[in-house]
């Protein structure tokens, strides 16, 4: 399962991403020389911080892919853990939730990824929505505090679903059994991550270049109709162009990319609504230029489960 050394297609993908990052870094470098105004300086500094962070994230992602299955499972487990940390930090919890939260971080999160590492799809798919869902209120009722009971449990259940369960669908792609494509599921994961992230990037770029009309002024004032259209169309084009690494035909790849981009867009909006309600701009400061981990993966949280299930339903045996 060593993609980078044996899989010719994977080598092309890695080279392609490298080329894109190089071009982005060069553009960032020249924009940096040109910019004069103070406001522009801020935007370009942030852009260059983002590009630098993209290098790091891309290298980590490819290293994880190169290990075959286990590296990706561990990487996404860590991502879930850090995302849940940002989410719970931002969400007011009750003193009496302490033990339930401890279980969420140190038992439920690793267990979900352990099940995926062990290829237990049947139980991995219900562990959090059924068993963790039941366990959290039980643990909280044992703690013996009824104040805000419904809201307190809901916050924890929500966090586990968004930060752990949905994210775990990304490495779960490696469990799919697609006839004729044994050992090649890493490229499905690549397809998902590449389309969600580039959709985000293109929405940002189109929004910055052509954005005039706000699409959700109350929820996310930086998102524009122009950015949305450019980002989604761009993501569909990129997804279509990647059909050859997937089990999909070109038009199926286009539809998949469309679904991913739309789900990702709404994921970003939903997670923004929570930030707005809490009065913050970012979930954290883990990734320079981007904000927190959760700011980076909000679109993936919503796109991963849908992409997984469509692929599972139509293409896997």
């Amino acid at each position, binding site marked *: 399962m060593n993609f980078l050394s044996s899989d010719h297609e994977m080598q092309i993908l890695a080279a392609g991403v490298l080329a894109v990052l190089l071009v982005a870094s060069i553009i960032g470098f020249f924009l940096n020389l040109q910019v004069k105004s103070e406001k522009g300086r801020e935007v370009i500094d942030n852009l260059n911080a983002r590009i630098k962070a993209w290098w790091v994230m891309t290298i980590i992602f490819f290293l994880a892919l190169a290990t075959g299955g286990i590296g990706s499972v561990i990487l996404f487990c860590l991502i879930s853990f850090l995302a849940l940390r940002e989410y719970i930090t931002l969400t007011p*919890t009750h003193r009496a939730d302490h033990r339930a939260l*401890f279980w969420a971080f140190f038992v439920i999160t690793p267990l979900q990824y352990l099940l995926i590492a062990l290829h237990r799809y049947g139980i991995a798919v219900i562990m959090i929505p059924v068993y963790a869902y039941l366990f959290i209120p039980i643990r909280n009722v044992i703690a013996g505090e009824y104040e805000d009971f419904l809201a307190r449990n809901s916050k924890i259940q929500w966090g586990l679903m968004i930060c752990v369960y949905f994210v775990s669908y990304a490495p779960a792609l490696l469990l799919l059994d697609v006839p004729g494509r044994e050992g090649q599921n890493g490229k499905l994961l690549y397809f998902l991550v590449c389309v969600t992230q580039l959709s985000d990037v293109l929405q940002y770029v189109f929004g910055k270049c052509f954005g005039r009309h706000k699409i959700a002024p109350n929820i996310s004032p930086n998102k524009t109709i122009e950015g949305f259209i450019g980002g989604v169309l761009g993501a569909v084009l990129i997804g279509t162009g990647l059909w050859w690494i997937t089990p999909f035909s070109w038009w199926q790849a286009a539809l998949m990319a469309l679904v991913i981009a739309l789900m990702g867009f709404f994921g970003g909006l939903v997670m923004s609504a929570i930030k707005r309600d809490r009065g913050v701009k970012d979930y954290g400061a883990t990734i320079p230029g981007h904000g927190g981990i959760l700011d980076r993966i909000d679109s993936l949280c919503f796109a991963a489960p849908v992409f997984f299930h469509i692929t599972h339903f139509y293409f896997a045996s």
Partner: protein
Amino acid sequence: MIAALLSSFVRLFTGVQARWFGSAPDDDARRVYFANHTSNFDFLVLWSVLPDHLRKRTRPVAASDYWRAGRLRRFLAESVFRGVLIERKKVTRANNPMDQLVPILNAGESLIIFPEGGRTSEPEMRPFKSGLYYLGRAVPDIDFVPVYINNASRVLPKGELLPLPLLCSVIFGKSLRLEKNESKDAFLTRARAAVEALIDL
């Protein structure tokens, strides 16, 4: 060695970030950091977030009744944190905490003090105990740096044993000194307000 490992671990676990407003982590600074106190994690977070060169020369002031109970606590307090364990219940002339603290400051080291005198579970800080004032009288040129520790009470609430990995931040404010002729109450009120002013930053 253990201290360096422990402080790295705390920084990783809580992702703690230091924000300095109006004071800076200078090399030769000798000061008294005073902070709000809601959790045993407070001091760990504040201590871990100090740059190495400062942490090596900063000693936390802690209650001897708590930290002398049990071997592990004692080892941590004495060998790892180099805590200054003071009597907080039956203070007499013979065990006056000032006799321990003043020589440390005069030797050029810094102190961490939680002037509320114990952990609080309410959001509101308690009135400050008078130790800060007496330190200011004994060492007139000492800088008092107000510190607000955010979220440590959620990492490890009073009464819990296992910490949660939540993000913390430590905010350092502009230092203050005891003014000439400033009364005890006026100084303590001013010091407490300086910590409160950091809450919304």
